[in-house]
């Protein structure tokens, strides 16, 4: 049986990054439906809409205007409807303290933005595969930490 379509959300203020991400998603085997947001506020406004279909994974850029990734992460983890969402931080920062901080704040995945399209595709594919295994194999999501 093929996988059902995975719902994915990405909040990133950089248009080029959003486009690349979308193109990479389109090229991988796993079927996905991607919703794009220009900043954290747009994303959060969307997630708390009543009756919205929640994405399986939210990708968050750290540095965004209006509401940054860290603020979104905080709100997600403190919102009863959203706290179980899988959150992937998607950032250019590779500072160890940043990374630890995001994990402690509840991120599941930390991705250093890859610098080639091929690498980006690989990263996304790995994340989605792993997510699928957590989804279908009764693995403990609290212990789902991944850094790539």
């Amino acid at each position, binding site marked *: 049986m093929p*996988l059902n379509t995975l719902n994915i959300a990405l909040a990133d203020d950089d248009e080029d990054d959003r486009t690349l991400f979308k193109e990479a998603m389109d090229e991988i085997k*796993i079927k996905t439906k991607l919703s794009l947001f220009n900043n954290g506020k747009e994303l959060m406004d969307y997630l708390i809409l009543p009756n919205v279909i929640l994405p399986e994974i939210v990708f968050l850029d750290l540095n965004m205007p209006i509401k940054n990734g860290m603020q979104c992460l905080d709100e997600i983890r403190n919102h009863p409807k959203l706290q179980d969402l899988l959150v992937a931080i998607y950032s250019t920062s590779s500072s160890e303290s940043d990374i*630890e901080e995001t994990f402690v704040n509840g991120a599941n995945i*930390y991705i250093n933005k890859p610098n080639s399209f091929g690498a980006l595709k690989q990263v996304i594919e790995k994340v989605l*595969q*792993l997510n*699928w*295994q957590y989804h*279908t*194999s009764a693995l403990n999501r609290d212990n789902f930490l991944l850094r790539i």
Partner: protein
Amino acid sequence: MRIYLKFDFKHICRTVLKEQLDSLGLKYTIYGVGEIEFNKIPTQKEEQEMTSLLGHYGIEIMDDQQMELVQRIKDAVTEWIHDEENPKLYNFSTYLSEKLDYSYTYLSSVFSEATYSSIENFVILRKIEFVKSFILQNNLTLTEIAFKLNYSSVSHLSAQFKKTTGLTPSAFQKIILKRKERALSQK
């Protein structure tokens, strides 16, 4: 003369399904385009007839057995890793194909098709999950965990942990402990 046609595919599919299922005298409900529920479980003969009738129109009954097999593979993997008594003298592929009575090649292709991932990857993932729970619950040393899970050495365990999660076992432990502290302080 040439004419041009427009198709309503959903309607066509439903009509074909209805005609064929009615011809078998089955009671059913069609959900959406790809799901049918039967009021009574069809007999094996009816199921065979249905497969061939629908097959004629290029409609294939999707195989639940495959998903079931994938689940059995996963269960066997978990059991194999959990079983400390098992000396793990023989390799995993032999164990799996003996237990499920299929060739490893077959199992492996079914698994990859259904999950986009390999059995080997799943074994590693499962093992690492097990390592995580040991790190968090039992306060075992890595050496003890490595021995329990049959790693050849601590460094092999650490390397596989790092490769799978991107974190060292100690970084993982630190993050989870800090999370717990924070959760406690917020209460």
